[in-house]
């Protein structure tokens, strides 16, 4: 198992390298640079600045220097937040995004699995159809439509929740962003759980469990839930990626100073190092989380584990 994990980690390195190279090329290919502005600089000054930030070097050299810094754990200075290194910025913003993402994921799993299970148990009834209809809308309506509607209803009309990211609101300011982020995932997970649960409930060992007089709740909880979760677990990989990318939009809409917001700002500001740093970070994060998912798979399905 250890060997397997190690091999997976090593195998991720070429992927990461490719991602970094592509991101580097793309961000430099975009017109403009980090120091462009309407208040254009006089030629001398501009030259000095380029030299000071080493943007006058040929691209391959810049890339090589970036990589050598990366290996040492140095993601470089930010071109836009000039007093901070990229690592510091990511370190400051990430916990917030992590909180947001983790809560959204947790909410999505809990609500999604419950909804899917209920729908599966009540297959064919109105309840089943209603749950599935809701999930369909959750998937179809984009985040940037849902978010303002939620804000309008819950914040402006009902005044139950704060409209934006205010520092005095405490935990309640997380509610709308987390819900917005979780909504499409709830929908996917509900559908996935339902299909998987229906499949599992049709299996022979469920019939055995029922024949043992265990009652529906026990049958679901003890026997059906774990295997039904396997497809959901496999989905976690893409789901995490979706939450990570979705959080970018949600943070922008709600004005949350998380990593997603920094990402957008960095791209618009042509802050090369910050963009690359966040890309690397996200890529590594997704690889790591996928690895954890694989390990969890083994925890649920003993046949995989005992290979």
């Amino acid at each position: 198992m250890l060997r397997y994990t190690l091999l997976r980690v090593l195998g991720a390195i070429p992927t990461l390298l490719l991602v970094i190279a592509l991101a580097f090329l793309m961000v430099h290919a975009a017109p403009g640079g980090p120091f462009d502005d309407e208040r254009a600089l006089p030629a001398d000054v501009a030259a000095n600045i380029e030299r000071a930030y080493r943007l006058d070097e040929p691209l391959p050299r810049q890339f090589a220097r970036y990589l050598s810094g990366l290996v040492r754990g140095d993601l470089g200075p930010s071109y836009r937040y000039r007093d901070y290194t990229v690592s510091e910025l990511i370190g400051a913003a990430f916990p917030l995004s992590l909180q947001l993402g983790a809560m959204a994921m947790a909410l999505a799993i809990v609500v999604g699995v419950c909804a899917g299970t209920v729908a599966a148990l009540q297959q064919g009834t109105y309840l089943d159809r209603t749950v599935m209809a809701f999930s369909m809308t959750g998937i179809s309506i984009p985040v940037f439509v849902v978010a303002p509607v939620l804000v309008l209803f819950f914040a402006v009309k009902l005044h139950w929740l704060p409209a934006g990211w205010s520092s005095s609101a405490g935990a309640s300011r997380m509610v709308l962003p987390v819900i917005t982020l979780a909504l499409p995932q709830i929908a996917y997970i509900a559908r996935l759980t339902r299909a998987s649960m229906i499949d599992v409930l049709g299996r022979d060992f469920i019939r055995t469990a029922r024949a043992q007089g265990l009652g529906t709740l026990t049958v679901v909880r003890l026997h059906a839930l774990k295997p039904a979760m396997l497809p959901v677990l496999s989905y976690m990989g893409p789901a995490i990626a979706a939450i990570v990318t979705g959080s970018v939009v949600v943070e922008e809409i709600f004005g949350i100073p998380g990593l997603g917001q920094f990402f957008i700002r960095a791209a618009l500001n042509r802050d090369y190092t910050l963009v690359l740093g966040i890309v690397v970070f996200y890529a590594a994060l997704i690889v790591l989380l996928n690895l954890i998912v694989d390990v969890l798979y083994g925890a649920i399905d003993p046949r995989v584990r005992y290979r």
Partner: protein
Amino acid sequence: MSLLKVSELSIRYNKTAVVDALSFSINRGESVGLVGESGSGKSQTALALLGLLPQQASVTGSIRFDGTELVSASEQTLDRIRARRIGIVFQDPMQALNPYLRVGRQLREILVRHKLAHGAEIDERVIEMLGRVGLSDARRQFHAYPHQLSGGMRQRVMLASALIAEPDLLIGDEPTTALDVTVQAQILELLEEVRDDTALLLITHDLGVVAGHCERMLVLEKGRLVDAGATTSLFASPGHAHTRLLLDAAPRIDRASSLSPATGASILGIEAVSVSYKAFGNEQLQAVYDVSLSLRSGETVAIVGESGSGKSSLVRAMLGLVPMRSGRAVYAGAPLEGPVEHRVKAQRRDLQLIFQDPVSALNPHMRVQSIIGESLLVHEPGLSSQARRERVAAALGQVGLGDEYLGRYPHELSGGQAQRVAIARALVLGPKILICDEAVAALDGSVREQVLALLLKAQQDTGLAIIFISHDLAVVRAISHRVVVLYMGRLVEVADNAPLFSRPRHPYTRGLIDAVPVPNPVVAPKKAPLRGEVSSLLDPPSGCVFHPRCNYATEICKSKLPAARNLRGARVACHHADEIDMSL
């Protein structure tokens, strides 16, 4: 008052009745057998008793269990009855047990649910039950996962789960069909030991099992009860034609074969063939070890063995579907070597293969016409489509199917019809050797008889040689000229049909023969001849691989592998073959 009284029970799906006005009763402590062919409604009845039918089923009639009405009872009522009053053992324990939970965990929940024990006592009772069903080291098995247990052990666990709440009625739905025959004998014996005064409803298609273990017998045909009565009476004088049909069609281990020995020329030789596979990691799994056999034209050689015997691997190696590790196979003077893609067409044409599950062996997207015609396209491309159509029709006729089957899809065929199509596909090329890998194992009695008959006819008409792989010794006795017995990939005994079944030379062969249930209710069932199960192929026992299960094993058997030697017309691999007399 009877324990269970079923009156006019009907189970319908969309207006089609799978069980029609069924009425019977079971008294306390009684053992009743429920027999019928597939589709006769046996399993449906069992499920109905426990309220486990799917939602689409509409159930009418009455099921009174100890006074309580079960048809349209509430889930709570049924839950109180399940396991606690009526237990059930299903057919396939690998499917019936939850692969994601440890064995002990699954069992203890029953005690918890029905409030039969508390605290530490729960686990103890589970372990005790596991011991009672014959699991050695029950405490360790408590923590095992189902896939870590052998087939027999799993079924014992199932039995434990069915009996742990001490029900009044135990239902066995084909409980031994998926098991090796020697393990089946053990389980059936265990069933007798362990059920005490629990009534037994044993559902099976095997009349030998009914004869040995059921006082009374119910016969179903297409959902209707056609015959009922004491087992001995019904066997002696069956009331209904269907019962007679079943009795006649059942292959009997105690009936000698009427075949005359084959005299054709030798066409196939297999010499010292070994086949091994790469298992997880770098371990080698030895599937076949140093097996030799020969085949003549017009001869049927049966290869017999239980799971892990290597029967399928051997023929697959012969056909080039898996690589041979060592040894050689020769057909008509030319070697059979290399993967099947590289082999000469003639060889591929002359050696044909039929599998156990006919429906999945046929391409579901193709019609019968194309399925059979496909081989002609490959091997005789020069044929005009007209000629091809004629050949296909002829092949269908040979297997007893009319032209109306040409346009059908596999899912529109019954099991028997599908197997016939598979045979037609194999025979249309006029092969010299036909290999049947458990070809009739999935077929019901009468259908099986018909398929076997047409195989024999093809053999008589064309001099076809048949290699017949089977675990069913009764069928083997009926149709083979010679028998090859394999155990864990090794050759154990080769002999002609009559001598093998009257005086087997190897203890394993004797065990196999004794394990087969005899459809004769007057004779008491034999004690399970062999203990234990087939050992793991990854870690075979030293010396003679059979020694852990052998009643005659001595020190030499544990250390030295016996070589196959000739012994009065048979080949046997046993140190003590000439000392033991195992005549039947």
